[in-house]
Structures are given as C-alpha cells and as structure tokens.
C-alpha cells in the first residue's frame, strides 16, 4: 500500500488545503517546525484508523495503490469511505488500531516514557518464541551453587585436615620418641643403679660419720671422771644436807655441851647438904621451918593478940585522948607531943628491933600503945585511917613518949579540936574506963607473947641448925625461914631440874654428837663414793662432779646413740651395698664425696627419665589403643566427600545453568521469530554491526536487550544513548510491522527519529530503512525540519545504490515558500578512513589507533586489526564497513562477504580468527580472574555503607586484586571487620568470578587449549593449526604488559574506579 496522492482540505490544526504526491519509496517530508508535518502523518492515521481520530470533522482524501490497484479513501466528516474504481470498497485488511503507533514513530515516542508498548511487544514475542515456556522463570528456579556452603565445606575440610595433620604429627613425634624407648629404659635403669649406688655411697658416708661419731662419743666418755657413774644428781644436795646436818649436830653438841657445863656449873653452884638426901633433908628442914613458922605464928598471934589488946587499949586511949583533946586544948597539945614522941619512940623501937634481930622489947610497944590509946581517945578529924595511923603512931609514940601526941596535936586544928573537945571529954571518960580494961588484957597478952616468943626462938634455933647443912644463914623469921626453905626448895628443885636437864643435855649432846658422827660418816661415804677425800667442808669437788653429771649423761647418751646409729648405718650400708653391687664388708671411702656427687648427678636424671618413660609408655599405649587418627582421617575423607558432593552438585547445577543459557541463546538464535531476527538485522544494519538485539528480562519484566558487540555487554534500553535507543526501537517496530501485517502494509512515518544519530549511523539507518522499504514495498515518510537530513538521506541511499528519496517540501506545498534551497539539500560525503598505503602493520595500526587487547573485556571488543592476519587492505575495508571490533565483525561478516567486501578465503580466515579469539578468552582467563570493580564492592551486601569506602580504598591499594584483598582482610586490613563478614565477602567475590586459584597457562599450553577447543567445534580448522597457534601468540603479544604480567594491576575497562 502506497499513497500516491494526499489531499488535505480540512484538518484540525491546519488552516489551508494542500496536496502531496509522495513517491513509492522514501519520502522526505521537509518543513520547518509547525509547518504541518505531524498533521500530515495524523491525516494518514485518521484515514487508516479513524477510531483514533479526535472526532472532529475533516476532509481528507488519499489516492492509494495496492495489489488490487488504485484505492481511494475519502473522509468528509468523521468516517472515511473507501472506493476502488469509483465504487465503494471495503476497508483493506490493516493491523489493529492499537498497533497504529508502530506506523508513526516519533522521537518523543522513542525517547520518552517507560516503553510500555515495547515491553508488551517484547513479552509477546518471548511467549510466542518459547512456545509458552518461560525460560527466564525456569532459570530463576534452577538451583544455584551455594558458594557459601562450599566455603563452609572447605573450611570443614581444612579443619579435618588440620586435625588429621595434628594427630599425624603427634603420632610421628611419638614414633620418633618410640625409637628412644630402649635407650630411655636403659637410662632409667642406669639412673636407678646410680641412685642405688649414690644411696649406698651416702650410706657409706653416713657409716663413716657414724663411726667417727661413735669414736668421738667414746673419747668423750673416756674423758669423763671415772666416778661419774657413781654420781647422783642429788649428791651435792646430799652433801650439802649432810654438811648442814653435821654442822648443826656439832653445833648442837657444842651448845649442849656448853649447856651441860653450864648446868653442871650451875648444879655445882647449888649448896646442898653434903650428906644425905637433899630432898629428905629439905623435907626435914621444911618441917623445922614449919615448926618455926608455927612457933612464929603463935608468937605472932600472941603478939597480934597483944597488939590487939594494945590497939584496943590504944583505941581506948585514942578515944580518951580525943575526948581529952576535945575537952582540953592542952590535952591536945599533949597528945600532939605524945604523937611526936610516939613517932620518935617508933623510930627508936624500930632501931631497937633492928638491933635486936627482930624481936624488940615489948615495953616500948606498950608505951606506944598507951600513947596511942591516949591519942585514940582524942577526937580526931579525918576518919578511922587517920585515927588508925594516929593509933599506930600513938603506939609508937607510946613507945617513945608523947611525940605522937604532939604530931597528932599538930594535925588537929585548934578550931576542930575545940568543936570536938566537948564530945571528946565525954568520950574520954568512957574511954578511960575501956582503957583500963584493955590495959589489963594487954598485960596478959604481953606475957603470952613473951612465951610464944621463946618458942619461936627455939624453933628458930633448930632451923638455924638445919640451915647450916645447907650453908644458909639461919633465918631470923619464919618468913625468912620459909623464904629460905622456899629458896632451898627451889634450889633443890633446881638442882633436880638441873640434874635432869644435865642428863638430858648430856644425852642430847651425845645424840647430836652421834648424829654429827653419823652425818660425817655419811658424808664421808658420799665423798668416798665420789672418789673424793674425806675432806672438810668443801663442796666444790662434789659440785664439780654433779655439774659434770648432765654433760656426762649426755655424753653417755651420745655414746649410746652413736653406737645405735653406727649399728643401724652399718646394717643399712650392708643392705645398700649389696643392692648396689658394692663390697658390703668394707666401704671404699676414697673420693667418696666425688663419687656421691657423680652418682647424684646421674640419679637426678632419674625422675625426669622415669617421667619421660612413663609418659612415653602411656602415650604409646594410648596411641595404640586409640582411634584418633583413624577417626580424623575418616572425618577428613567425609569432609572431602562432602566437598566433592557439593562440587558434583554444583557441577550439575552449573551444567544445567549453562545448558539453559545455551538453550536460551540457541533458541533465540535458531528459533527466534522473524520479528526478532529482522529487528536484529535492522539494528545491526543501523549500527553497522555494532549492536545486536535480543529479548531479555529486567526488573520490570520482558524487554529488549542490546548486545554491544564491541564491549560484549548486554545493555538495557535505559542504559543506551538516546540515538541508539531510538535505533533499537525503530528496528523493533520496523521488524514487528512485518510480523503483524497480514495484508496491506501501511506507510511508515518517521518523525525526526534520526536527529540524534551521527552521520554514519544515520546513513546506515537511512539506507537500511530504504532498502527494507524497497524490499517490502513499504512507503516511508521521514519528517524533518532539517534540510541537511535531505542531503544525508540522499547520500545514504546513493551509497547503497538505492533510489533517491522524494523530497516533499511541505512549505512549498502549502505555498509558504521552499523550506530549503537545492544546495542545502545536496548529499553530504561521509568521512573517509585512511588506507594503509605503504604502511607496515605496526605503523598502520598506530595510525588507526588500534586498541590494546584486554582479555578481561572478552573477545568482542578485540580490534579486528588483530584478526586480519596482517592483511591491511582487509583491515581498511573492515573499518570502512564499521567492523572495527570482533563482536561487530562476527555479526556483519556474512553480510560483508555477501557484499563482496571480504573474499571467501578472507571470510574463512576471519571466522577462524574469531573462533580462536573466542577460545582464547577462557583459556587465558584460567588463573587470571578479572580485577575487581567498584560494582563488585557495591553489590556486596555483607559490607556496610561505612565499610564499602574502606574496602574500595584497600582494594585500590591492592591493584584491585581480589585474592590479595581477601588476604589483607584476613590480616586485619580493615580494622574490626568480623570474620563472618570476611567470609561473606569471600563468597561474594567468588560468586562474581573474582577468585580463581588455577595456575595460568603458559603460551604453549594456552595455544594448545585454544586449538583443541577450536578444532572441537570446527574439524576443518585442523588444517590451520599453525595459523591458530600464530594467532594465539599474536593475541598474547597484543595484551599490554601491565595486564599480561599482572592482570589485576588495574581495574577492568569501563568498570573500575577510573570509569
């Protein structure tokens, strides 16, 4: 279906009417902005899909041409009417209205929005091409190798290996120690013998010491006094007691002797009758004295009676005297004189009595009594004593005259005498009478007294006679006799007592002497026992001996102990000497200490040796009885098996994934619907082979992916430049149109869709679109406001040997003046690529700016310069055809061959070179994991946001080498990073293919691997082995040294930190 004429008379937005007459192929609808280009497209759409019109009235008419001939559609109002040959005709079979956007592609459609239309398109295509099977979903459901689990299993294996290595090492050590067992046992025996020997030698030394000690003890004992055994600890005390006792007894004896002598002297001093028993004599004397005393008592009684009579007479006299005194002062005076005289008389009487030897004459007394009686007869103051005294005085006075009276008179006062004179006179008279009576009595008692006096004198004479035997003077009185008798009695008694005392003292003295003798004898015996002379009181020798007793006893004890020790040590020596194999009869004491020291040194090893032997025997027993190593090895085997099982499962999972990916790829390649193939072809044509198209999925669902054959990257639409994205979607829609069109092929309107393409790309697109239009008979309208586009189109179509486009100057058609001059519409020549001329390959390569080969980027970005085998003309042609990269070349090579740009031979060589390049990458990559990238760290969920910058910094320092990075993490390269996080990072990097522990292949091995793989795919290649090897070496040479030597020295192209 093509539009031959379009009449627009009324259309909302256009205020004039005009007619366009397009050509059958490409029509360039040129006009400035707002000149109605879009309105023209809308007019065609409204004619073909009136349901999309806005409902306003319009007048449009198009004259078309299809397989049935001319076809006219007219819209006068709202609904178009179809006619053919003037007759109404049915609307031709056109795609559904919802597909109408496919026929008008605007830059805004392609650049904006979420491409929901294209997504739906992709989803529909995917479903259609997989027969309802969602391969993506299946891929999601496939089990993935759990690298973390492998990590755990590897750790477990390492742990079990460490364990078995530890047990093996321990058993190895033990085995080596077992070799020393016999020597150790011998050493133990030797050490034990040395120990016994040392013990025996020590016993010998002890024995020698005991012998010496015994000798010393013996000498010490010998040095002690011989009497020491007889010495008692209390000897000194005994000696002292005996001495004390001896002294005491001696002193007692002496004292008793003195006493005895004193008693004897005293006894000798006592006068006793010479003959007769003193006692008897004394008794007789006592009788005589008693007689004398009786006589004297009788004389005394008579005297007393006489005195009484005298006293009575004196009283009578006193009374008479008193009465007289009272009656006559003169009488008193006389009395006083009488008293004085009495005193004198008494004195004289006493003197006389003294002179008479006790017996005075009675007369003075009588006189005195008479005087006294006179005095007494006188009233005297002062009571009876005075009166008695006066009476005595009167008696005395009576003896001496009137001296007592006088005194008596002096004692009376004149006045009292006067008071008593009267009374006294009275009484004087009475008294005178009584005086006379008493004077008679007195005379009679006088006579009796004289008799008795005589008796007394006789008795006294007998006493005196008896006294002579006692050496005593004869007593004058009985009292004296009695006193004498008492004295004699006392003398006798004393003599008796003295005699008894003397006897007792004598006995005591003798006893004391005997005891002294006994003590002395005992002391002598003690001294004799102590071997000391019986010397006088000198305790020093005894003390010395007693003091020496304890030392002596100790000496004795020491001696005994030394003897016991000697016996015990002798026995011990014999026993030990026999055990040690020494001569027990006589210990060899030579160099004893040195030998002991030597044996001790050896002996001191015994404990260590026994310990070592015990430990070794125990360890050996445990090792032989245990199952440690068997268990460890079993655990290691199980861990190894677990890891292998994981590897097995992982291999299966990876194979499934690889198969699925291959399936996906192959199916898309082999079974992809024409739509996708066409779109791919178109895109390849648009981009001169750089890009290919495929279906894919992203987070939003099905979409188209673009394979950048230069970088081997699959790119999403969102990541493409505007121009490329427009080209992709244009290709998709163009391809899709063919699929959905069952009958008519409506014209395609491209509304400035190539404005973002570079001239070369635009030329490619233009020629492709034109070719496609020509091939399918589709009419194309390219709407542009740029006159230069016309030139570009013209140049492109001319370059492709296609008919030139028809230029529809909308401004001119609307009579608004031409949009551009003819010169502005002239074709633009493309920039030329320099030919090789006479350059050698290296020079030409430099001139072309051939990129270095980085295998980490894959084979697609490889410059085709490296694949041309030095054919510089081919290099030039490939570049002119846009096949600068291997990926592009692989895509366009058939077309280039078809176009005659490469010969068949060149094509085969290039195909082989491409196969080699493909095989080169995995072979070279073995052991050369790609450098890590920022993305590798950014996608590592184990690292926190704060850790990521530090990880990146560290990774950068380590030339983006993942292995070294992990080593650094293991060595605390990032402080406080937990072990679990490090393990997770390791897993993450492994999952991203950054860890490869294989050894890189050398050049020959690499070439062999490549050749093997290429020939496996292409048996014909076997004829070109050398070519392949040469190419491999060439590719190796094309790799920059920085990458070849250290593949991790810089980040991979485009994705590292410099990107």
């Amino acid at each position, binding site marked *: 279906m093509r539009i031959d004429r379009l009449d627009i008379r009324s259309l909302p937005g256009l205020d004039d009417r005009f007619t366009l007459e397009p050509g059958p192929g490409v029509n360039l609808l040129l006009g400035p902005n707002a000149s109605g280009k879009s309105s023209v497209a809308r007019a065609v759409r409204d004619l073909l899909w009136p349901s999309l019109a806005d409902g306003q009235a319009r007048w449009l008419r198009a004259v078309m041409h299809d397989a049935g001939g001319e076809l006219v559609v007219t819209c006068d109002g709202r609904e178009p009417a179809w006619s053919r040959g003037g007759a109404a005709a049915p609307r031709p079979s056109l795609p559904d209205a919802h597909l109408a956007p496919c026929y008008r592609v605007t830059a805004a459609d392609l650049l904006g929005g979420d491409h929901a239309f294209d997504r739906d398109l992709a989803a529909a295509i995917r479903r259609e091409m*997989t*027969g*309802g*099977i969602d*391969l993506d*979903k*299946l891929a999601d*459901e496939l089990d993935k*190798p759990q690298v973390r689990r492998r990590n755990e299993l590897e750790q477990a294996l390492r742990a079990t290996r460490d364990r*078995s290595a530890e047990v*093996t090492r321990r*058993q*190895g050590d*033990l*085995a080596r120690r077992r070799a020393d067992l016999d020597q150790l046992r011998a050493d133990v025996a030797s050490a034990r013998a040395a120990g016994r020997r040392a013990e025996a030698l020590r016993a010998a030394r002890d024995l020698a010491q005991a012998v010496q000690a015994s000798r010393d003890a013996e000498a010490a004992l010998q040095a002690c006094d011989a009497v020491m055994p007889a010495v008692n600890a209390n000897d000194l005390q005994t000696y002292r007691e005996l001495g004390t006792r001896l002294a005491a007894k001696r002193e007692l004896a002496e004292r008793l002797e003195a006493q005895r002598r004193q008693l004897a002297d005293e006894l000798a001093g006592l006068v006793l009758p010479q003959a007769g028993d003193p006692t008897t004599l004394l008794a007789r004397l006592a009788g005589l004295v008693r007689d004398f005393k009786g006589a004297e008592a009788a004389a005394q009684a008579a005297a007393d009676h006489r005195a009484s009579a005298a006293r009575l007479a004196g009283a009578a006299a006193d009374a008479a005297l008193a009465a007289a005194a009272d009656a006559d002062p003169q009488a008193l005076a006389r009395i006083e004189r009488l008293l004085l005289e009495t005193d004198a008389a008494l004195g004289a009487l006493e003197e006389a009595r003294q002179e008479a030897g006790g017996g005075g004459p009675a007369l003075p007394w009588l006189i005195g009594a008479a005087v006294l009686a006179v005095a007494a007869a006188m009233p005297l103051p002062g009571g009876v004593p005075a009166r008695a005294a006066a009476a005595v005085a009167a008696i005395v006075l009576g003896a001496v005259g009137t001296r007592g009276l006088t005194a008596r008179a002096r004692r009376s006062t004149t006045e009292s005498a006067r008071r008593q004179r009267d009374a006294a006179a009275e009484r004087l008279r009475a008294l005178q009478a009584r005086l006379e009576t008493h004077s008679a009595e007195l005379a009679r008692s006088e006579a009796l007294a004289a008799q008795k006096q005589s008796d007394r004198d006789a008795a006294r004479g007998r006493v005196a006679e008896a006294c002579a035997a006692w050496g005593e003077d004869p007593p004058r009185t009985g009292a004296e006799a009695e006193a004498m008798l008492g004295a004699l009695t006392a003398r006798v008694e004393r003599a008796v007592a003295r005699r008894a005392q003397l006897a007792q003292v004598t006995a005591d003295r003798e006893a004391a002497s005997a005891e002294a003798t006994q003590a002395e004898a005992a002391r002598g015996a003690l001294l004799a026992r102590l071997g000391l002379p019986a010397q006088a009181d000198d305790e020093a020798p005894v003390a010395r001996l007693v003091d020496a007793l304890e030392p002596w006893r100790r000496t004795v004890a020491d001696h005994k102990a030394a003897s016991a020790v000697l016996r015990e040590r002798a026995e011990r020596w014999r026993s030990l000497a026999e055990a040690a194999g020494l001569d027990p009869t006589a210990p060899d004491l030579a160099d004893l200490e040195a030998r002991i020291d030597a044996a001790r040194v050896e002996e001191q090893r015994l404990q260590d040796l026994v310990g070592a032997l015990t430990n070794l025997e125990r360890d050996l027993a445990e*090792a*032989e*009885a*245990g*199952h440690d*190593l*068997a*268990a460890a*090895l*079993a655990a290691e*085997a*199980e861990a190894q*098996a677990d890891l292998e099982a994981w590897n097995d499962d*992982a*291999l*299966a999972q*990876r*194979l*499934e*994934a*690889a*198969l*699925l*990916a*291959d*399936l*996906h790829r*192959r*199916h898309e390649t*082999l*079974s992809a619907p024409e739509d996708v193939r066409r779109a791919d072809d178109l895109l390849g044509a648009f981009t001169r082979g750089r890009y290919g198209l495929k279906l894919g999925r992203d987070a939003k669902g099905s979409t188209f992916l673009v394979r950048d054959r230069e970088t081997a990257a699959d790119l999403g639409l969102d990541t493409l430049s505007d121009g490329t994205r427009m080209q992709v979607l244009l290709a998709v829609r163009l391809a899709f149109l063919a699929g959905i069109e069952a009958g008519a092929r409506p014209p395609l309107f491209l509304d400035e869709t190539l404005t973002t393409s570079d001239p070369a790309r635009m030329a490619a697109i233009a020629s492709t679109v034109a070719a496609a239009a020509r091939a399918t008979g589709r009419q194309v309208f390219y709407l542009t406001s740029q006159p230069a586009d016309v030139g570009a189109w013209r140049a492109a179509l001319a370059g492709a040997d296609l008919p030139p486009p028809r230029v529809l100057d909308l401004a001119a058609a609307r009579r608004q003046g031409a949009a551009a001059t003819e010169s502005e519409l002239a074709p633009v020549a493309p920039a030329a690529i320099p030919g090789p001329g006479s350059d050698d390959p290296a020079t030409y390569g430099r001139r072309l700016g051939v990129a270095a080969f980085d295998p980490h980027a894959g084979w697609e970005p490889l410059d085709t310069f490296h694949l041309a085998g030095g054919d510089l003309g081919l290099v030039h042609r490939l570049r002119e055809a846009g096949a600068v990269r291997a990926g592009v070349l692989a895509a366009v090579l058939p077309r280039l061959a078809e176009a005659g740009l490469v010969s068949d031979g060149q094509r085969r060589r290039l195909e082989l070179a491409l196969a080699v390049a*493909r*095989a080169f990458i*995995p072979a070279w*990559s*073995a052991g050369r994991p790609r450098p890590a990238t920022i993305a590798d760290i950014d996608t590592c969920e184990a690292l926190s946001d704060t850790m990521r910058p530090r990880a990146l910094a560290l990774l950068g320092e380590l030339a983006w080498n993942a292995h070294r990075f992990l080593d650094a993490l293991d060595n605390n390269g990032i402080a406080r990073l937990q072990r679990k996080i490090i393990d997770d990072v390791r897993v993450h990097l492994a999952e991203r*293919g950054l860890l*490869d*522990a*294989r050894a890189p292949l050398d050049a020959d091995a690499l070439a062999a691997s490549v050749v093997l*793989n290429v020939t*496996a*795919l*292409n*048996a014909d290649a076997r004829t070109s082995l050398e070519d392949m090897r040469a190419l491999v070496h060439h590719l190796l040479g094309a790799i920059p040294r920085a990458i070849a030597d250290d593949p991790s020295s810089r980040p991979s192209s485009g994705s590292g930190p410099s990107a």
Partner: protein
Amino acid sequence: MATPVTRILFVGDMHLGTRPTRLPAVLGDPDRYGPAAAWERTVTAAVERGVQAVALAGDVVNRRNALFEAARALRPGLERLAAAGIATFAVAGNHDTRALPGLVTDGVPLHLLGRGGTWEAVTVGGDDRPAVRLVGWSFPQDRWTESPLATPPPAADRALPTFGLLHADLDAAGSPYAPVASSALAAVGYDRWCLGHIHTPGALPQDGRPFYLGSLSSLDPTETGEHGPVLATVTAGDPIRLERLPVAPLRWEHWTLACPPQLRTAGDLQEFIYREVSARAAALAPAPDTALGLRVVLGGAVDDPAAVAAAAATIDRTPLRQDGVEIFVERIACRVRIAADLEALAQGTDPAGLLARHVLLLENGAADPAGSALLAELMDGLRTAAAIDLDETMLRQRGAAAARRLLDRLLGAGGRP
C-alpha cells in the same frame, strides 16, 4: 582318606588404620565395620578353614595411619594365625613401605616377601600336602615407576603350582605405583597372579591372568560390590580353585531403582524403596552381622518427576535389619525422568525440542560437530563460571544428565508430556 590339599587365603588391600566413612551413627562404633574387623574375620576364617598360609597383597596399612593404630589392629591377628600354625606372608604396597618392614623387625610373625623390590619365593605346604610356591615382590618405596618385572621373577615351574603376589598398577603405563602390563604378568607363566592396589575386586580367573583381590572390605561408598579374601585351594591333580569368602563386614552398593510411572507420594516411594531394597539385599545374601550401605538412585520415567523428587527428600532412612544384616541408605539421588519420547520431542523447534536434541547429542556420544560445539560451549561456560575443567567423556556424561534434568524441568514447567 581325604585328598590332601593346600589352602592359601589371599587378602587384598586392607588399609588398616582406616575407618569406614558414611556410616549412620545408629550403627554404633564404625570400627565394627572397618578393616580391623574385616581382618579379624579373615583370621577367623583362615583358622576355621585350616589354611596353610595367609598372603597379604600389600597396602596392609594405611600409610597415613601406619604408626600405631594400624599396627595395633594387625598384630593380634598375626599372632592368632601363628598360634594356629598358619604362616602369614605379605608384600609391601605403596602404603606399606615404611610401616611393614618395621613391623617385621618388631617380632611380629609376618614374612615380608620381596623386600626392597626383589622377587622372593617361599614354599607353602609340602610333606603330605601339595607344595605351593608363593612368589612376591614388595614396593621398595612409596612411588615406584618401574615395572616389577624389570627384575625377572623366578621362572615358572610346571611341577610346582605357583602364585604370584604383587602390589602393582595393572596396565597403567607411567603410573607411579609399579606399573605392569597384564600380558607381561600372564606371560610369566604362574598359575595365578593375585594383585593388590586397586580396591575394586576383579573376577576370579581360571588361569594365570592377573586379577585384583580388591580391598578386603569396602572403605567408602565408592567401593561397591562383594569384597573379601580369596581362598585358593590346591589339590594335587585338580585345577586350582579360587573362592571369595564373604567375610567383609561392610558392603556398599549403588542401586538404581526404576520408579513406576505413577509413583508420586512419599508413602508410595517409601514403600517402593523398602520393597526394592529388601528384595535386592536378600538376593545378595550377605553374611550375618554385617552392614550393607546403599546409594540409591531413583530412575525411570515418571509422570511427575518433581513430586518424586520432593518425596525422595522426605524418605525415612532408618536402617533396616534383615537376616542379621544392617541395611542403610546413605544417599538417595532422584534421577527420574518425565515420560516423554525424546526422539519425537527433538523434532520440535521450541526449547524442549532443542534441549531434547542436546540430550540426544550428549547421550549418543557421536563426534559430530554439533555435539562438539555444544560440549565446547558447556566447557566454556564451566570454565568461565567456576573454573572447572572436565574431560570430554565426563563432560558429555554429566552434560547429558544435566540436560535430562533440565528437560524434565522444562517439560514440567510447560506442563507438557
């Protein structure tokens, strides 16, 4: 009067000091099923059968555990044999070169034949029994790249039955373990060549072709089949008879059970496995007081492979005790396929058809370009993704299995038969 015979019990690789792996804990002490237990049973069998000699074909001990634990296990058996008047001979295998000579010098009643890589002959029997010559060669060191026949062994003697006892790697030129050609050994002319080294027991020959005695008892799940010592009976005038004695305490088997198509539930699968295992175990007739370990592969074409796989994950693997034998399933792998006509499927152009063609390509093994290309693609994929290298055979085999599983998934996902 009984015909006089001379009996020699040949024992293959024992690897004393090794503990069998992958035994379920419920079986208790794994050493009950290990080489030491196998050796003890072998000694008992030798004594009970009144053999004249026991010949050990090397790798008596595990090299990594030869110092204590292996020796401890070996000595009592040797002493029992000596006490029963049975001589024990051995050649040193690559595992024994350090341990076995030490044991011999340690007073253990063991005669090490061919010490230091020489040939040595001893005579067994004699007197009232047929004399049998035993010729052996021992590894001089762990690795020995020369053929033991580089030094000629004693010549064959038609009048004296001769057994060669050797630890060597048959038909493996370049092997570091005494490589020797089968034909060269057969050409020596001995009546039998009893070999150690390979743990898989060989078929018992009727002539002088060498055969592997195999490990005395399975050491790990990969050592499947019947293991045990081989009793050689020499009767004057009669052919030599060889018989493998079922004394190994542990046997491993890998069984693929063809699941019925309608199998789906865990209960059905449990019953199916139980029935199959029980029947197959009964057919093996293992000796009592032994264990039979199984790795089961569920195969066959089923209606719902996913259901079977899910059921397989829930299978109760409690050991089964049958006729005194502990039977346990160590691993179950589900390899059931969906019932589909692969050839017909391969005619299609959809993914399933393409994958079916992959399966056929890989399974057929033909060296066609398409298959090679596929293998190359897979290899590249493996190398790139996981740095894995496989040889073509392995890659083809594993690739075919993976393609099968993927096809099952694909068909299951698409709901297509």
